[in-house]
C-alpha cells in the first residue's frame, strides 16, 4: 500500500493549499481520519475515493462549510481559523449546486460578483468575460432554467471563478455530462489551472479523465488517505505490487475473443484467460505467479502472447499490463469496483 504523503512543514513558495491531519466525525462514525496533503499553484489535484470515503466531507471542510474536529489547513497563506478570508480566496463548484431558474446567466454572475465586493458594473463586466471564458456568452441573457446540464456546469465553473480564486474546488463537475461535454469541461479545468495559475482540487469518479489531466492525486478510503502524490508516482508505486498479480488485459474484436482464448491457453505461462469488464472485447489473461513484472522474462511472455495473436491474424485493439492505470491503483487500494 502506498504511504500517505505528509507535506513538509516548510511550505514551498508556490504552495497554495496545505491540509494537516484533518479529522471529522458524524456522531460515533468517523468520516475523515487524518487528511494531509498540499497543492501548488497551477497544478490539478485529483481527489478520489469510493462513495462514503470522505471526499465531500473533505471538500466541505476545506471550503469552510464544515468545521473539522481536529487539524487545520492554510489557503493562500490564510489559516483555517479565518474562514471569511478563506472564502474570498477560493472558488467552489459543489457536487449539487442549485441555480435560480428565474435569473439569467449574467444576472447570476453579477449577483455573486457583488457579493464578493464588486460594484454592479464591475461585476457585470467581469461576469460577461467569465461567460465568454466558459463558452456561454451567447446565452448570457437566457434564463438559467433553459440551460442544459452541461451549460449549468459551465456556469457553475464561471461562478467559482467570479472572485478570481487562488484555489478552485470542483466536486464531480462532469457528473451527468455526455462524453463530449466531459471533454470540454475537463479542457476548461486544465485552462483554469494553467492560465489563471490557480490550484485546482478535482473530485471525480472518471478515473481515466483524472489520470489524463491531474498532476497530483489523493486517494481516500474510509476517511483515510491510502495514496497521494504525483499521478505518475502513485501509479508507479502501485504497479510494483500490482504486477505481482501477473495479468495483462487485451482488447480484441468481440467475435474473436473465444478463438484468442483457445490460442492463449496453449502458452505454458498462461494460467487462464477470461472475458472481463462491462465493455465487450476485453480479455484478462492471468500468468504464472512466479514472474517478476519488471523482468525480461515478463516482456518475453508478453511478446509471445502478442505473437500468437498476430500469427492467428487477430487484430489487437489494446494491450496493457494490469496495474498500469489509475483505475487499477484505485481498485487495488480501495477494494471497490468502479462501473
Amino acid at each position, binding site marked *: 500500500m502506498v504511504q500517505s504523503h505528509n507535506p513538509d512543514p516548510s511550505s514551498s513558495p508556490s504552495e497554495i493549499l496545505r491540509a494537516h491531519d484533518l479529522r471529522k466525525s458524524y456522531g460515533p462514525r468517523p468520516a475523515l481520519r487524518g487528511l494531509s496533503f498540499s497543492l501548488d499553484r497551477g497544478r490539478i489535484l485529483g481527489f478520489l475515493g469510493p462513495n462514503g470515503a470522505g471526499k465531500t466531507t473533505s471538500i*466541505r471542510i476545506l*471550503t*469552510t*462549510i*464544515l*468545521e473539522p474536529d481536529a487539524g487545520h489547513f492554510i489557503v493562500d497563506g490564510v489559516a483555517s481559523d479565518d474562514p*471569511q*478570508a478563506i*472564502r*474570498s480566496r*477560493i472558488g*467552489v463548484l*459543489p457536487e*449539487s*449546486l*442549485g*441555480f*435560480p*431558474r*428565474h*435569473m*439569467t446567466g449574467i444576472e447570476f454572475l453579477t*449577483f*455573486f460578483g*457583488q*457579493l*464578493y*465586493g*464588486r*460594484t*454592479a458594473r*464591475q461585476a457585470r*463586466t*467581469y461576469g460577461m*468575460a467569465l461567460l*465568454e*471564458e*466558459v*463558452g456561454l*456568452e451567447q*446565452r*448570457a*441573457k*437566457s*434564463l438559467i432554467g*433553459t*440551460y*442544459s446540464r452541461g*451549460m449549468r456546469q459551465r456556469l457553475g465553473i464561471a*461562478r467559482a*471563478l*467570479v*472572485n*478570481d480564486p487562488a484555489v478552485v474546488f470542483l466536486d464531480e463537475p462532469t457528473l451527468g455530462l455526455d462524453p463530449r461535454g466531459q471533454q*470540454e469541461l475537463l*479542457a*476548461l479545468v486544465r*485552462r483554469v489551472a494553467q*492560465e*489563471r495559475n490557480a490550484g485546482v482540487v478535482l473530485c471525480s469518479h472518471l478515473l481515466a479523465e483524472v489520470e489524463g489531466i491531474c498532476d497530483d492525486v489523493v486517494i481516500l478510503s474510509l476517511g483515510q488517505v491510502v495514496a497521494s502524490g504525483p499521478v505518475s508516482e502513485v501509479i508507479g508505486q502501485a504497479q510494483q505490487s500490482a504486477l505481482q498479480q501477473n495479468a495483462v488485459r487485451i482488447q480484441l474484436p468481440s467475435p474473436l475473443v473465444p478463438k484468442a482464448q483457445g490460442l492463449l491457453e496453449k502458452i505454458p505461462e498462461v494460467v487462464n484467460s477470461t472475458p472481463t469488464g462491462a465493455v465487450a472485447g476485453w480479455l484478462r489473461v492471468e500468468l504464472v505467479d512466479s514472474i517478476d513484472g519488471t523482468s525480461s522474462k515478463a516482456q518475453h511472455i508478453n511478446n509471445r502472447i502478442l505473437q500468437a495473436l498476430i500469427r492467428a491474424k487477430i487484430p489487437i485493439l489494446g494491450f496493457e499490463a494490469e496495474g498500469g492505470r489509475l483505475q487499477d491503483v484505485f481498485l487495488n487500494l480501495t477494494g471497490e469496483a468502479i462501473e
Partner: protein
Amino acid sequence: MTAKASLSDRPIASSRSKSPTWWLLFKRDLSELWIGGRALALLLIYTILLGILTYVLASNSELSLIPPKEMVYETLKVAIAVSLVISLIIGADSLSGERERATMEGLLLTPTSRRQIVVGKFLAAVSPWPATLAVTIPYLSVLSQGDEVFRQAVLWGALLGSVLAPAYTAVGMLVSYWCNSNKTSLFVSLGIYVLFLIPAQLPGRAQTGAMGQLLQKVNPMAATTHFLSKTLVNNRTLGEFWSWLISPVVFALLAYGMLFLFAAPGLRLEAGRASRIGKVLSRWVGLSVIACVIAALASAPALATSFQAPISQGAEQPLQISIDMASKVVKAGDNIDFHTVVTNAGSEDAPPLIVAMNIINLDAAGDVVDPEDWSPQRTQYIEHLGSGQSTTLSWRVNAILDGDYMVYMVLIPAPDGQQATSQPVASSGIHLTVTPFTRLNPGGVLPYAIGGPVVVLLAVLLLFRLRRRGIDMGGSK
C-alpha cells in the same frame, strides 16, 4: 471557450462590498418572490378571497344587518389572518427552500456574514404584507360607506399588521432554520399557526372566563383581534385596551431576537445549529410544538364544555314559560317580534330569573346560532316574580341567514348559593323558516370584488411581460 476573463480586473482584497450584502440578498429574493410568481400567486388567491368575503358582507349589509364598522372589522381581521399565513408560508420556505434547491451552499461559500444573509431574506419575505394591506384598503373603503372607522381601520391594521406579519415571518424562518425540507418546515409552521388560532376560535363562554381571557391576552393573534374589535366596533379607546397590545409586541421582539441574535450567526448548510445542545433543543422544541398542537386540538372541546355550567337535577321549580308563536316563514332580513309569558305557579316567590334565547340551525345538524348576531337582546332578567304572578317579555329576532331554525327560550332560576343549583325550564319552540334574499352588486361592492383579482392578475401578466424584455427565451443547446 477561448476568451479569458481579464485578470487585471482582480477583485476583492477584502470581503467589503460596494452594496451591503443584505441589500443584494433582499433584491435577489424580492425578485424571486415576485417575478418568480410565488408571492403574486398568494396575493391573487388572497384578493379573490377578499372579493368573496366583501361581497358576502355587503350582501348582509344590504339587509341592514351588519353595520359598516363590523364589516370593516371582519374584513381587517381576515386580512391580517391571511397575511400572517402568507408571511408564515414565505418565511417557512426561505431557508429550508434554499437547502432543498441546493442554493444555500453557494451563498454560504461567499464571504458574506450569515446574519446579513438572514436579514436580506427576512426583508424580502416580509414584502407581501404591504402588498396585502394595499390590496385591502379599497375594500375597507367601500365597506365603510364613508364611516370614520375606515381611517381607524387603516391605521390600526397597518400598525398591528406591521408588528405581527414580520414576527410571523421570523417564526417561519426560525422553523425553516431547523428544517432540511420544505415539507417539514411548512407542516410545523402551519401547526404553530393553528396553535395561535385555536384560542380565538373557542366558544364564547370559554373566551370570556378568567382562563379564556388569559389565553386571549397572551395569544398575540387573539389579543390583536380583540383589540381591533373593541376599538373599531365598540368605540373603545387605546387607553382602555393598550394592555392587549403587549403580547403582540413581546411576541415580535422574541421572534426577532431568536432569529437575528441566536439563529442567524449559526446559519449553515444542514438544519439547525452545530452544537449538540442546539440539536437537543431543536428536537425538544419540535416535539413540544407537535404536542401542544395535539393537546390544544384535543382540549378545545373539553375546555368549551368545562365552561358550561353543569346542570344537575335539583329541586323542581313550579315555573312555566310559554311563547305566543309556533312557526313563521320570513325572508332573510325580516324582523320577527314575539312574546313570552313567565308564570310562577308555585306557592312561594320565585328567585331572580333569567330568560335566555336559543336559536338552533335545523339545516346544519343542529348547529347553535349565536343569538347576539340575531337579536339585540339575547337574555332578559326578572328581578321578582311572586307566587301566582306572570310577566310578559317582548323579543325581536333579525333573520340574518336563510335556513331552517328553531327559536326557544330557557328560563333559569338563580341558584340559592355557591353550592346550590337550579332547574332551567325550556319553552316550546318557534319553527322559523328563513328564505333567501339576494341582490346583485350589493352596496356597489361588486366592481371591487371582481376588479381586485383582475387588477392583480393584470399586474402579474405585466410583470412577466416586463421580465421577458431583454431576456433571450431560447431553449438549451
